[in-house]
């Protein structure tokens, strides 16, 4: 039973990868993530033609409006997903959104003024480099 619960996040992930075109796990600090989630989900709802799922441990404003694309998950599941993502590339449709000190990232373009917030959201949603 313990093992089953432990692996439930994996079963959910497999099923979500079947159902959705892209999955974003949003991590970070509580003071910054909820407003980010609200803004990001608004853009997805307004513009994206793909089926997108956003996962986070945080609540966001007017959460019920975003039920189609947003799911709150437990801290433990977020940790498991994060560890799996950092173990290997299991899909090019699963992404973790959080600034990371170990490598550069698209949020640096926001901070250095090369892209605005809307452009960063759209790049994250639609950008795909398949060399």
């Amino acid at each position, binding site marked *: 039973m313990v093992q089953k619960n432990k692996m439930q996040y*994996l079963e959910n*992930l*497999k099923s979500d*990868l079947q159902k959705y075109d892209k999955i974003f796990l949003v991590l970070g600090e509580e003071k910054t993530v909820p407003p980010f989630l609200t803004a990001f989900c608004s853009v997805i709802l307004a513009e994206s033609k793909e089926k997108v799922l956003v996962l986070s441990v945080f609540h966001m404003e007017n959460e019920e409006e975003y039920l189609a694309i947003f799911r709150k998950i437990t801290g433990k599941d977020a940790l498991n997903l994060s*560890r*799996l*993502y*950092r*173990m*290997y*590339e*299991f*899909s*090019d449709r699963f*992404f*973790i959104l959080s600034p*990371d*000190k*170990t*490598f*550069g*990232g*698209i949020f*640096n*373009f926001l*901070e*250095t*003024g*090369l*892209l605005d917030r809307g*452009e*960063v959201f*759209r*790049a*994250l949603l*639609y*950008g*795909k*480099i*398949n*060399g």
Partner: protein
Amino acid sequence: MDQLHLQEMKENLERLVQDGQLQGKKIYLFGHCNATEELADLLLKQNYSVTAILDNNQAKHGSYYRKIIIVPPQDILKETQGESIVCIAARAYAAMVEQLNRLGYTGIIRKIVDYNSYAEYSLSADTIARKQERVKRGMVKLREIRKSYPGYFKFLCPFSALGDIYFTMSYLPYFIQNRKIGRWMIAVIGNACAKVVKLFGDVLVMVLSQKDMDEAIQAALFTNAADVFIPHQDRPYVVNLSKALYIKQISLEKIYCCGVFGLSESTKPFKPVNLRVFQGKEQIKPGKTVIFSPYAKSVTALKGEFWERVVDEYLRHGYLCYTNVVQNEVPLPGTLPICPDILEIQSLVELAGVFIGIRSGLCDVIREADCRKIALYPDYCYCDTKWKAIDMYHIEGWENIVVGEEVSWTIN
């Protein structure tokens, strides 16, 4: 592409041929890149015909490489699936396989070169167990590096490309200052990359194999290592900077400056300081020598006829012509081979007077040289973007020329 991967490609292709897997099949390649062109060349040389190159970039559809048309991936579905094979020599192998599967393709797919040890698009227990072992090996490697450089901050460069290392070193001092990093070292793949590091001063540099580097990086990611930074624009998979190119054209140098290192756009790059005088002056006619550089790792190749035309023009005008070669590379017809040390190559081209090269990392290495410098760009789009190679790689102060189907060449 580099010699190791080329060798791997030849061996894997030979295996496919021996096993009869190509026999009677319509052959498709996926992803128009330098490696795919090499693969097409190898197939054509063995008298196989390639039906098409699949590619996601709309801007490439309808164009040709050696009479092989580039088409959208869904075109594969027009084939009777048991009668076709898709050969992939691209880093995005796992993503391409998934895309073909999602499209409904059930035919044969073969990996010809293993460019990407990070990816395996499976969540099976078996895969996860293998990847856990890989992380463990990476931890051992990381521990070894820490033991060799105790207390040092570590920069792990994931890819063996001179240009990437050059940009890294150009902006790294600012990053080190901003992060208040004390002692540091840098690990790279291959001696050539280590030489590029050395161009920027007396730096502690360690050379790793691609496998050890991949595993050490994976371990650093997995453990959230606070003493490691991975300075690259699109490797490994967690780095999402390339996605910005969907929205905006940002040169590779700016991706490094602003995206990798988080520096303002106006930051001035550091320049090489550790240059040596070329030890072979007697081979050069000062000011009347051309150094050609026709080989690149990621940019697609220019036609042999084009190079022959340019070489002929310079020979006709009394120039001495050399081709910069490494390992098994062959000099252009009519030229002599030359293989200068990276620390001496700026001195060589300044003595020669003219450098003409396909846009490769070597152009970055000599970007500050005081001579006539010409960078040539195939007319193609960068990865999946709508931006041309020249948009991404343009070098200030150089003659940047796009080479189309018909190019005449005159010496000004």
